[in-house]
């Protein structure tokens, strides 16, 4: 099982969601975060023009069975890239175990619905 965390532009979220769906990932958890990186943007508040490196972003996080990981990553890459500074990052890490609370299923089978 792999955990995939993607920090993307909020404006790309819809496309990423659909891309993941096509890649067979129709479950994930997301929340809004603030990112600091290479991108910076100009803004104004009252009499001050300023550059901020704090950018609103969305964190998408999900756990997939290993054989689905690469497809998911490609989907995110395609859907979230604009080519401009600030497209974000994808991080991949290892998961020891996963449990579906409803059924108590553990391991890979907790990650999909057997039919």
């Amino acid at each position, binding site marked *: 099982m792999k955990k995939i965390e993607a920090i993307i532009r909020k404006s790309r979220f819809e496309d990423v969601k659909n891309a993941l769906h096509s890649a067979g990932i129709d479950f994930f958890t997301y929340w809004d975060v603030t990112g600091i990186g290479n991108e910076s943007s100009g*803004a104004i508040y009252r009499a*001050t023009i*300023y550059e901020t490196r704090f950018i609103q972003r969305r964190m998408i996080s999900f756990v997939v069975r290993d054989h689905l990981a690469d497809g998911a990553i490609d989907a995110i890459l395609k859907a979230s890239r604009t080519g401009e500074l600030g497209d974000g990052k994808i991080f991949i890490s290892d998961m020891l175990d996963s449990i579906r609370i409803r059924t108590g299923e553990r391991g890979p089978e907790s990650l999909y619905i057997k039919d």
Partner: protein
Amino acid sequence: METASISLSLDTVWVLLAAALVFFMQAGFALVEAGFTRTKNTTNILIKNLMDFCIGTIFFWLIGYGIMFGAGNGLFGTFEWFSKVSHGGALPNEAFLIFQTVFAATAATIVSGAMAERTKFKAYILYSVVISAVIYPVSGHWAWGGGWLSSLTTPFHDFAGSTVVHSVGGWIALTGAAILGPRLGKYTNGKPNPILGHSLSLGTLGVFILWIGWFGFNPGSALGASNPGLISHIFVTTNMAGAAGGIATLLTTWFRYGKPGLSMSLNGVLAGLVGVTAGCDTVTAGGALVIGVLAGVLVVFSVEFFEKILKIDDPVGAISVHGICGAFGTLMVGFMAKDGGLLYGGGAGLLISQLIGVASIGIWSLASGFILFNILKYTVGVRVSEKEEENGLDYYEHGETAYNM
């Protein structure tokens, strides 16, 4: 006789409803100040705005009213408890009292914005007592209580209080903000950092509420409706200046910062309204437009001046809007008053009286503000600890956070 009593009733109705509208400005100030500051200090700014009105109500009634409207001499009314002095006119004394009360509270509440996010609650409470009981009434007496400014050969003309109310608040705000010093993190080696207000929705609603309040503030200052042409004219000039101020600021920010900004334009509307308050009765609609435009431009540069040159941290722009534009608008009367204004061939007489009024009241409020806040500083203290400021006044001063989403 009959008719006299009806017209007295009508005048009373007018003044009372105007008082209600001016009262509502308290909500406007509360929202603007809350909207332009951070959520960790929202409870604090709200409670300050609520309390300065409560305190103002009671202490202005207790002694302030007497000081302001008691016969007394040119400098000072009478020290008379419980507003037991007559204001002269036919209007019921209590109608006059409530109208003057909400004015006093307006001057008081201006200050909280400039001192927001770092002032000790206890110090603010004490400040509120002093301004409503003494500082505002004294200069108020000079101009409106039969004091020396009203008995100049060409009397000082401040119809609804650009100087008497707004500048007084603005100048005291200036001393307060200066003595407090900027908020933590406002300046990094001299360069100002933006500290974003938490809700422009609250801020904008606040400005709309202030605007409608002004329809009580200015026309109500006619203290009656017996001259329908006058109060109608004041409605027009007041509205015109507010609108012109908003547009002027919008364009100024657009040219100067590259984009049309809302937070400044909100200040611009207020700048126009404050600016026209002194002359709303005596300038033409076109004159109001000019005053509004100039105030709307002026406020932008003034905000920059205090923030970037003087490095005085005024989170909501109260000093520029009320202090600077109040003084500016009062002086403009000297030029643009249909009767007596320089541009209308009235010579310099009025302008000089306006200068005298602006200067004397300015000095009085700056001085008393300076003394007051220094006394507070070395007694109860005016500023919260670094730790309290970092974590927010809501938690440390009140134990209550404003938002629990």
